[in-house]
């Protein structure tokens, strides 16, 4: 696998970009680069919604020192593209960027970035949330945690709506 893989989704006018990367990435630099290279959204986007998922150094009461993210080459990319395409059917947004780490990850490293650009905030917020929740429940990635005393697979993701009052 290349250090960084790019997948372009063919929506008209948009340059939707999906990246799987084995190396640490800076989400804010990725956003800046994407915007710089996307003249079609200049002056058109009134809203940008961004989600960044970052590795914690704790889980289920244990200190986590490292995580290994496995994926299913081919199916993972295919399903990320499918998720973005589903979002495009539901919301009218201008463009989208998805970056996801694979391989070995350390605490405080960004794991995932989802950014959506749209004319008004509603589409950007909703599509960003949809893509993130679908990614968590459908895209074939698996986390293996390395704690101080053991190595274990994460059994399931928590609900994205936990913590709401």
């Amino acid at each position, binding site marked *: 696998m290349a250090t960084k893989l790019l997948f372009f989704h063919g929506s008209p006018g948009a340059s939707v970009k999906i990246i799987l990367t084995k190396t640490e990435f800076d989400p804010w630099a990725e956003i800046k680069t994407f915007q710089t290279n996307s003249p079609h959204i200049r002056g058109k986007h009134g809203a940008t919604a961004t989600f960044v*998922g970052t590795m914690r150094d704790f889980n289920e009461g244990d200190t986590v020192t490292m995580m290994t*993210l*496995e*994926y*299913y080459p*081919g*199916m993972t990319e*295919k399903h990320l593209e499918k998720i973005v395409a589903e979002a495009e059917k539901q919301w009218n947004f201008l463009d989208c960027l998805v970056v*996801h780490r694979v391989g070995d990850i350390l605490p405080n490293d960004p*794991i*995932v970035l989802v950014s959506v650009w749209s004319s008004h905030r509603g589409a950007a917020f909703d599509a960003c949330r949809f893509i*993130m929740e679908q*990614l*968590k*429940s*459908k*895209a*074939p*990635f*698996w*986390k*293996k945690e390395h704690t101080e005393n053991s190595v274990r*697979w*994460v*059994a*399931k*993701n928590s609900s994205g709506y936990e913590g709401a009052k």
Partner: protein
Amino acid sequence: MSIHVRFFASLREQLGVREQCLEAEGIETVEDVWKRVNPKLSLPEHVLTAVNMDYADVNSLVKDGDEVAFFPRVTGG
């Protein structure tokens, strides 16, 4: 031609098998694929399946040349 079977994550480690090629004769469904590879173990309920990289279920049809995958619940993001 044959059926290419793949296992991922904790399931791969539990079974000790990463991938396997099966003769397609006698195999009609995803469940048949599982039984051929794991004759003494029924397919656990939480295990997800895919045929040619699309989600499937135990009754999904499988043909010669297909790729069938088994894996646990996904935990990305």
